[in-house]
């Protein structure tokens, strides 16, 4: 150790390194930005522009019309009908997914034999292609041959077959069930991860304080899980808001427009009627609504984080 050999410090490298250390971070962000810009920013801006024109492939028009599309949108009962469905769908499926996901997470958090297997099984719906899920749910809830009707009849829950997708009373609900089935596992996964960040000693402290399982959950775990819950809920809500495949495959928006959502509406306007101007206005309105939803979540989130830290 005593031989003071040539120290590695003698390599000079002044300017180049200084530059790269200043630019480095930004350089590393470039690939992500290029990717997002080319695939997302451009279409978004394009959509914003189109929504201010009367572009239609069929009429071959493409003139700037200002906010006329939005005025039309404002007065369009179909839009508001779809808007209402979408909001309800978003709310109901997010709420249900949160509840079911939370229940799943709480169960799978506990240790028991076979937990790994159940955890994996839980993730199955999430891993299934949506195309398959929608076909499968069409099949399960089929009014005539669906196994759901058959089971409910067998167990005497209903006395005649229910036409799940054919009645405005049940169609949207059934789609919500399908969506909940598919995405509750994802929620459960996030919440499970969140639960594991709650220190065990807090739960033990609460037990020493006399809290029973329910109190521990309500007063300790839930409040501490709140930020995770909100973030996961935000992700889910935004995703639910864009619901498309399920509706499109299962009901096409019917019956009597009772399952029309903003995505299916904008799909129809954009690609069936090829009215890109009006269709873009619909998607921009969606974007705005999503922004509002995100804002509400973020407000709650900020409050939570302020409080719990």
């Amino acid at each position, binding site marked *: 150790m005593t031989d003071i050999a040539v120290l590695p410090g003698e390599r000079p490298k002044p300017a180049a390194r200084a530059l790269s250390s200043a630019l480095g971070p930004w350089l590393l962000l470039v690939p992500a930005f290029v990717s997002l810009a080319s695939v997302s920013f451009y279409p978004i801006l394009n959509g914003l522009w189109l929504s201010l024109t009367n572009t239609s492939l069929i009429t071959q028009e493409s003139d700037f019309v200002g906010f006329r599309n939005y005025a039309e949108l404002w007065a369009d009962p179909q839009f508001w009908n779809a808007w209402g469905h979408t909001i309800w769908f978003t709310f109901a499926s997010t709420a249900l997914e949160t509840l079911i996901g939370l229940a799943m997470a709480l169960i799978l958090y506990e240790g028991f034999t076979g937990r790994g297997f159940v955890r994996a099984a839980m993730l199955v719906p999430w891993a299934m292609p949506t195309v398959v899920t929608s076909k499968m749910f069409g099949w399960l809830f089929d009014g005539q041959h669906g196994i759901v009707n058959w089971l409910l009849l067998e167990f005497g829950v209903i006395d005649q077959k229910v036409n799940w997708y054919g009645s405005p009373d049940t169609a949207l609900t059934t789609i919500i069930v399908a969506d909940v089935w598919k995405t509750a596992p994802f929620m459960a996964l996030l919440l499970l991860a969140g639960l594991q960040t709650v*220190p065990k*000693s807090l739960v*033990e*402290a609460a*037990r*020493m*304080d006399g809290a029973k399982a329910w109190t521990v959950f309500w007063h300790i775990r839930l409040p*501490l899980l709140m930020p995770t819950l909100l973030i996961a809920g935000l992700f889910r809500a935004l995703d639910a808001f864009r619901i498309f495949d399920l509706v499109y495959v299962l009901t096409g928006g019917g019956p009597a427009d009772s399952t029309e959502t903003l995505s299916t509406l904008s799909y129809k306007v954009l690609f069936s009627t090829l009215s890109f101007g009006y269709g873009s206005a619909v998607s921009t309105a969606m974007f705005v609504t999503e922004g509002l939803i995100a804002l509400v979540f973020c407000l709650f989130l900020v409050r939570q984080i302020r409080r*719990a*830290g």
Partner: protein
Amino acid sequence: MAGLTLRGLRKNYGAVEVIKGIDLDVADRDFVVFVGPSGCGKSTLLRMIAGLEKITAGDLVIDGQRANEVDPSDRGLAMVFQSYALYPHMTVAENMGFALKIGGMAAAERAAKVKAAADVLQLAHLLDRRPKELSGGQRQRVAIGRAIVRNPKVFLFDEPLSNLDAALRVNMRLELMRLHQQLKATMIYVTHDQTEAMTMANKIVVLNGGHIEQVGSPMELYRNPANSFVATFIGSPKMNMLDLPVEAADRQGLRFALGNGRGLTVPVDGSGLRPGETARLGIRPEHLKPAAAGPFTGEAAIIEHLGGLTILHVDLGRAGMLVVQAEGDDRTGLGARLVLDVDPALCHVFDATGRALRRVAVREAA
């Protein structure tokens, strides 16, 4: 306030036995400290008492009643965790009042109790803060406050000071002792720091590998360790241990042969040993004194000046090293040759199994 009795307490994790039969009585108002090396089962034992770990075998008796199956919250105990385990989403007042709230106490009464406890701990001005807005020592006190408000029969502490820095640790130690006197409570305290054990306990339980090595008051353990484990574990700097050949041994004493042709006769019952066997001589660092003549000679290899004390590490050559605690600011230079003397009556002898040989003609040390 109440006593506690452990009878043959055992704990298995799967096939591994972690607590191997613990018998212990904790009297009312005792301050009992469980001490031992890391992994010896201190926390496990404490958590068994608390009800956070299931008891595999044996009986836990609290206040005369078997409590093995009683729910943690119904045992009338309060626990302070190493990590404090404060609820981050509640204010100090809410943290402290949580147990009472769950117990269904009215808000006004609860506030009064919290206030009283906060006054004891000088936390009154912090009641509206959240844990993250507190310093380490303040958090520590909130954790204790949370225990106090419940007015428990017994307080349990699991290394409550180990997350604090040295200066704060000393302060909190004093505060806890004050609290013990003030509350007249029974306390069980886990630590691996023998200084804490020595200063706080009126009864120390030395644990090792899941069983009790010795139980007694601090000075009892210090003066009469039952075996070499306790001897080296208790006391800082730790007891010097020299493995030396026995020159002569009888009921009245045991004479060691020191390499240099000299000997040292320690007044212990050496009847179990024979000349030629090796025994272990234990000498506390503060009992070694530089002198004109003495049984040990060596040179100062490392010198640690602590201001009020000086610790000398003396190299005896083949026989090993001796640590000497000198008073005040010793001026011995590095490499200086030292002759060390010791009062044989203060020495300890351990046999091959580590058991301490019984002292004869017991004479107390100064």
